[in-house]
């Protein structure tokens, strides 16, 4: 009888590394083909041409003088003095000057809470309590009391039409994101319901909202809605606008969430049914965790859009960050020529927030996709 040959597998070894060092990387990625070499040269030339010009304007010949005449002098580049002069107005809008510590503190509290909510360590039921306290503190600080109640802190009353700038931008986006997200999930589930009434209701809602621009929703909320209210009943414009943005954002988000729901195989629902889970248990424990994990990039897109879309509330006379920039420069003939510097200032603010959001999105994607790693 022939002897059995013992098979022995070769030991695994690491993959060969093709791009070691800077030079091979440049050669491979910037000059790999003649098309790539050509575009490298063209883009390089444009950068050499314009980057020094921009740096010259923005840094080397710029001034931080708060004297508008000094800025107008020949050979002077960017006038950052315009920002120094106007930053309080840009950031806080029409909020009474002497009371501006209130929006500052309120916004810092809210930002702290936002950061805390993003950290896994703090994900528990206490967040609900934390947010309740945060929102109450925000409104007491901003308004002076909790809409008439808890008027015990001796703060003067500042009506919502005076609120503005970055605090308004942050509050509007935070609240509309917090309200729109659960609504979007419910609507997305509703569109897949087997009950025809719920399904059509959700479809009609999504199609109606998607069929109109946000500006017209804001107009309706701000100017037309009061016409339909009974005499003497008024609802705060800010509240109406908040509801408008929320309803608008939720319709878009619902479609993103629905995309995630569609991506799950039917077997998941069947397996959940076979072990006796109810509809809501199945959605909460099985379907939504997976569906939402797959659409994190899309949802974060929505969140970032909402943050920037809040700039449209200027149209109904609420001066958030973009609006208060206009407020700062449009009516001041001395400083109006230096509007651009102001714009760059708010661009930087928007960018910091949006970039933070997209980095956070990447991190959370990595967190929830752990189970897919081998």
């Amino acid at each position: 009888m022939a002897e059995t040959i013992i098979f022995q597998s070769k030991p695994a070894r690491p993959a060969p590394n093709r791009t070691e060092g800077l030079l091979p990387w440049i050669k491979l990625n910037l000059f790999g083909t003649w098309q790539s070499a050509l575009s490298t040269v063209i883009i390089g030339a444009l950068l050499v041409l314009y980057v020094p010009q921009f740096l010259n304007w923005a840094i080397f010949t710029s001034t931080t003088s708060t004297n508008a005449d000094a800025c107008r002098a020949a050979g002077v580049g960017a006038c950052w003095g315009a920002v120094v002069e106007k930053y309080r107005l840009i950031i806080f809008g029409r909020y009474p000057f002497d009371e501006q510590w209130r929006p500052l503190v309120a916004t810092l509290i809210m930002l702290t809470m936002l950061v805390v909510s993003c950290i896994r360590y703090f994900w528990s039921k206490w967040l609900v309590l934390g947010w309740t306290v945060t929102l109450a503190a925000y409104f007491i600080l901003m308004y002076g009391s909790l809409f008439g109640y808890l008027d015990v802190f001796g703060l003067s009353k500042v009506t919502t039409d005076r609120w503005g700038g970055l605090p308004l931008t942050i509050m509007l986006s935070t609240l509309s994101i917090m309200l729109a997200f659960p609504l979007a999930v419910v609507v997305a589930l509703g569109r897949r319901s087997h009950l025809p009434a719920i399904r059509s209701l959700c479809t009609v809602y999504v199609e109606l909202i998607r069929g109109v621009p946000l500006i017209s929703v804001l107009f309706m909320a701000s100017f037309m809605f009061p016409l339909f209210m009974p005499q003497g009943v008024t609802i705060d414009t800010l509240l109406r606008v908040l509801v408008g943005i929320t309803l608008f954002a939720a319709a878009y988000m619902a479609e993103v969430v629905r995309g995630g729901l569609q991506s799950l195989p039917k077997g998941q629902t069947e397996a959940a049914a076979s072990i006796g889970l109810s509809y809501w248990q199945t959605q909460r424990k099985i379907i939504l965790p997976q569906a939402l994990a797959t659409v994190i990039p899309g949802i974060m897109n929505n969140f970032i859009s909402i943050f920037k879309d809040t700039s449209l509330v200027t149209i109904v006379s609420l001066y958030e960050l973009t609006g208060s920039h206009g407020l700062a420069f449009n009516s001041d003939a001395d400083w109006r020529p230096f509007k651009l510097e102001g714009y760059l200032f708010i661009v930087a603010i928007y960018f910091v927030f949006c970039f933070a959001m997209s980095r956070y999105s990447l991190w959370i994607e990595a967190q929830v996709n752990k189970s897919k790693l081998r």
Partner: protein
Amino acid sequence: MSTGTDNIIVFDKVNKWYGNSFHVLRDIDLQVRRGERIVICGPSGSGKSTLIRCINRLEEHQEGRLIVDGTELTDDVKAIDRIRKDVGMVFQQFNLFPHLTVLENLTLSPMYVGKIPKKEAEERAMTQLKRVRIAEQAEKYPLQLSGGQQQRVAIARALCLTPKIMLFDEPTSALDPEMIKEVLDVMVELANQGITMICVTHEMGFAKAVADRVIFMDQGQIVEQNTPHEFFNNPKTDRSKDFLSKILGH
């Protein structure tokens, strides 16, 4: 509510259509005794999967009566919930929950449906994982396991409900040949412990080893049913002879 016999499942002239035209189950009459082990086979599209999926109401039948453990399946949601607690199911594609660990897959239903404390659910889960010989993988995620291991986890998940009936829907069809045996071994062990089992499979060795009865289906009907010995050695109909020559011929 007893049906008067010791039948745990009774199909009485059950009919089902997909859409308006596809008559998938035609006048199904079937009685399954408590503790009986049944293998259903037949060509694809013959309605075998649909038949067992009716038992835990993953599919609805439109005509006839279907009684499971004394409860008739109707639109009554409470009855469906009750039956699903007593019927475990194993799918061809495993259908484990990929975002939960193996242990969480197993404790989910005992905790949320059975309402037993987490600790007890975990103990129960570990017992079942040992039973399918995979206890050391409890903390892993399903996609980190091989197909055979995943299917054994799926069997353990179904067993965590302590079901009276186990349904298997082609449990080895999606597996690599090397892994089929480890799953079949677990199923044979289970069969020897007295649970009622209905298994859609083409593993004829398994049928011969454990089945009390083989049911052959074609075009939505039960064509022939007999003991495995009789069915394999002495098929009665031309359809079953033809089918057996195809699956045993190579």
